[in-house]
């Protein structure tokens, strides 16, 4: 089928869904809603209800709306009315909501979030006015919560694969690279390297080449990569295919940690649908461009998200970083040129090609165009995954979108950019979300996770948990990181037990400097970050703890039980056959 015919077909299906006679019910089902809050059982309740009452419906499970505090969310589109949303829906109250609306046109106000659409219903607020929604500008998450994650036609009806079609049929590879360069798109994985420039390193090499999409995402506090794959895996697939076309690559791997079943299964299904519709595979759109994508699973290892460790893992080896040079663009997976992009970076690409670089550049700030997907967690009223325009202040994100600190507490610390990022004080609220502004303030935007910590937590306690994470996840290949992290954890733990003295701070500084100079990858190089940034803002907490007076008592209250290694010493000593 030609792309035009595919598009016509998809548009027709979309029209049936949105203007047909049956109510269209969408149930959010991503990581939090799906497995933790049981949206699956809500779906089966609705299906039972429809069968029992012989009420024909269209029902889809969709991805994440971002306002995780309100999940699971259902919405109904019916009889030309706007979409009406209810939050915190359970198996017990969902039928009452449906029954009243479908049979009696009555909108129950319990759990009601609001309406979405051009039209509105008198007396019901619009969901766009919710603080968590009005400040969002959703590009990478444009379809998230709106289309079924397992229906490629809904994606195509919403402009999907137009970017790939435009790139392959109307543009040369170099033009695609220039377009992405001009858009100012920078990598969303942490290093903020310009995506177009990264691609251009690959342009001149020949033969088998790989596009690797990094969805390892082991950062506590960040879940936006998995969020995209769960909500709209097609945007990633399209972005990867465009990256493949631009760099003249032949194969793509989506790299995910095993065990995250929803993102894995949904991505696999989406890839299969793309193949079935001729959007992946040989001679895409009748051109001589062919591209294959498969999912590559890794085991539990945080360092596997480091680009060279990722390549080792794709090859099926232990995820330990390689030394550079040679860089991946010259010598990557199995020695072939490779480019590694984060899920979020690739999720923007299709829209950049479809709407042009000027459009993307007009969003955000001078040095950081576009949006950032921030994940709020910790002591915050409205935790969730929000896509905001670059340039918004952290204060707006925490207070307006996140709703501030609950329980009458006050903000004490912010932890950004994953465990290797920095610990910030409340004075950082005025800092803007922007790669360079945040770097200037001693923080990294990194993967977009922001952990908000209130005044019940001691800085030593938070630092201990960050350092413990980094120590536990050190791959052990190079000794500055392996020994350094262990030594740092010993010292921080000692301080949290009310021991230690000021010379320990000097010792930590020395260890940290050596780790930075001597480690092979970012894990060791940045491993001292949590401590140095915490000391910068909260040295007093460290000094009090040394004297045995933890300022909040949290060091005594929260004793982490560090996981012990329980594996046998060698494979010969494994019991059994």
């Amino acid at each position: 089928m030609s792309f035009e015919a595919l598009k016509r077909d998809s548009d027709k299906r979309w029209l049936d869904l949105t203007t047909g006679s049956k109510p269209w019910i969408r149930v959010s089902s991503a990581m939090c809603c799906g497995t933790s809050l049981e949206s699956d059982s809500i779906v089966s309740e609705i299906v039972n209800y429809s069968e029992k009452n012989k009420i024909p419906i269209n029902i889809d499970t969709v991805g994440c709306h971002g306002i995780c505090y309100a999940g699971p969310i259902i919405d109904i589109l019916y009889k030309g009315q706007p979409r009406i949303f209810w939050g915190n829906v359970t198996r017990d109250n969902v039928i009452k909501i449906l029954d009243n609306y479908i049979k009696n046109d009555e909108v129950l106000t319990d759990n009601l979030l609001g309406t979405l659409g051009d039209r509105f219903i008198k007396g019901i607020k619009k969901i766009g006015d919710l603080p968590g929604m009005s400040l969002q500008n959703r590009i990478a998450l444009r379809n998230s919560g709106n289309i079924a994650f397992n229906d490629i036609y809904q994606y195509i009806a919403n402009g999907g694969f137009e970017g790939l079609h435009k790139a392959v049929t109307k543009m040369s590879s170099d033009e695609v690279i220039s377009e992405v360069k001009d858009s100012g798109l920078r990598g969303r994985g942490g290093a903020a390297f310009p995506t177009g420039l990264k691609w251009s390193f690959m342009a001149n090499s020949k033969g088998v080449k790989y596009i690797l999409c990094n969805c390892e995402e082991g950062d506590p506090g960040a879940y936006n990569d998995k969020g995209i794959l769960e909500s709209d895996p097609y945007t990633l697939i399209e972005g990867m295919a465009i990256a493949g076309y631009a760099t003249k690559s032949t194969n793509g791997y989506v790299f995910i940690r095993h065990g995250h079943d929803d993102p894995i299964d949904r991505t696999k299904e989406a890839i299969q649908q793309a193949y079935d519709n001729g959007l992946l595979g040989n001679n895409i759109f009748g051109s001589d461009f062919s591209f294959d994508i498969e999912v590559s699973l890794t085991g539990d290892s945080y360092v596997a998200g480091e680009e060279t460790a990722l390549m080792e893992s794709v090859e099926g080896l232990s995820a330990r970083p390689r030394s550079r040079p040679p860089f991946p663009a010259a010598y990557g997976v199995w020695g072939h040129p490779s480019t590694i992009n984060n899920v979020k970076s690739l999720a923007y690409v299709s829209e950049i090609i479809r709407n042009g670089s000027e459009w993307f550049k007009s969003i955000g700030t001078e040095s950081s165009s576009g949006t950032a997907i921030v994940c709020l967690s910790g002591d915050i009223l409205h935790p969730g995954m929000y896509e905001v325009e670059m340039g918004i202040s952290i204060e707006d994100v925490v207070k307006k979108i996140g709703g501030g600190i609950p329980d009458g507490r006050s903000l004490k610390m912010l932890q950004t950019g994953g465990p290797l990022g920095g610990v910030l004080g409340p004075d950082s609220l005025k800092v803007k979300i922007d790669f360079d502004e945040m770097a200037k303030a001693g923080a990294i935007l990194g993967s977009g996770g922001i952990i908000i910590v209130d005044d019940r937590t001691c800085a030593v306690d938070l630092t201990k948990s960050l350092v413990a994470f980094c120590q536990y996840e050190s791959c052990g290949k190079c000794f500055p990181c392996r020994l350094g992290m262990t030594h740092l954890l010993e010292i921080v733990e000692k301080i949290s037990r009310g021991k230690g003295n000021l010379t320990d701070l000097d010792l930590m500084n020395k260890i940290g400097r050596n780790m930075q100079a001597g480690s092979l990858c970012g894990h060791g190089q940045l491993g001292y970050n949590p401590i140095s940034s915490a000391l910068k803002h909260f040295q007093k907490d460290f000094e009090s703890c040394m004297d045995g007076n933890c300022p909040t008592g949290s060091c005594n209250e929260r004793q982490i039980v560090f996981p012990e290694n329980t594996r046998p010493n060698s494979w010969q000593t494994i019991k059994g056959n």
Partner: protein
Amino acid sequence: MKNINNEQILNILKNQDHTTVTILSSLLSVQDEIGYLPKNAISSIADFMNVTTNDVWGVASYYLNFRFNPPGQHTIEICWGPSCHIRGASKLQSSVLEKLKLKNQGDTSDGKFTLKFNTCLGACPQAPMISIDHKLSGKMNSSKLLKMLDKLN
């Protein structure tokens, strides 16, 4: 312990659901299917991939998810990453350890439970997170968790 013969393992390896077959994909497939890596899986994978047993053991002992004896009937995972830590994960750890009479992560002697401390279960808005038999539950507290464990008994 139920014996898993080499033929069964070879079958798993041949039918694995991975397009690119590697040492890691083979290990993941065996563990997914059997629940752990029996001793003969290491040598079978070595033969299958045409590498040495040390190569296979190197990968198997690197990733933290692989285990080498059968898991308990129920696997309980508690996240101790920073997001969950500040929301009270350590209390969950200590109450479950006490309940299961364990000193650290591991298996109970009656083979009923496997306790695992995980660094990130990936649903931080609902912290603290736990998972029982791969099903996540969020906003957890000790009494809720202990009740869930009682139900499993």
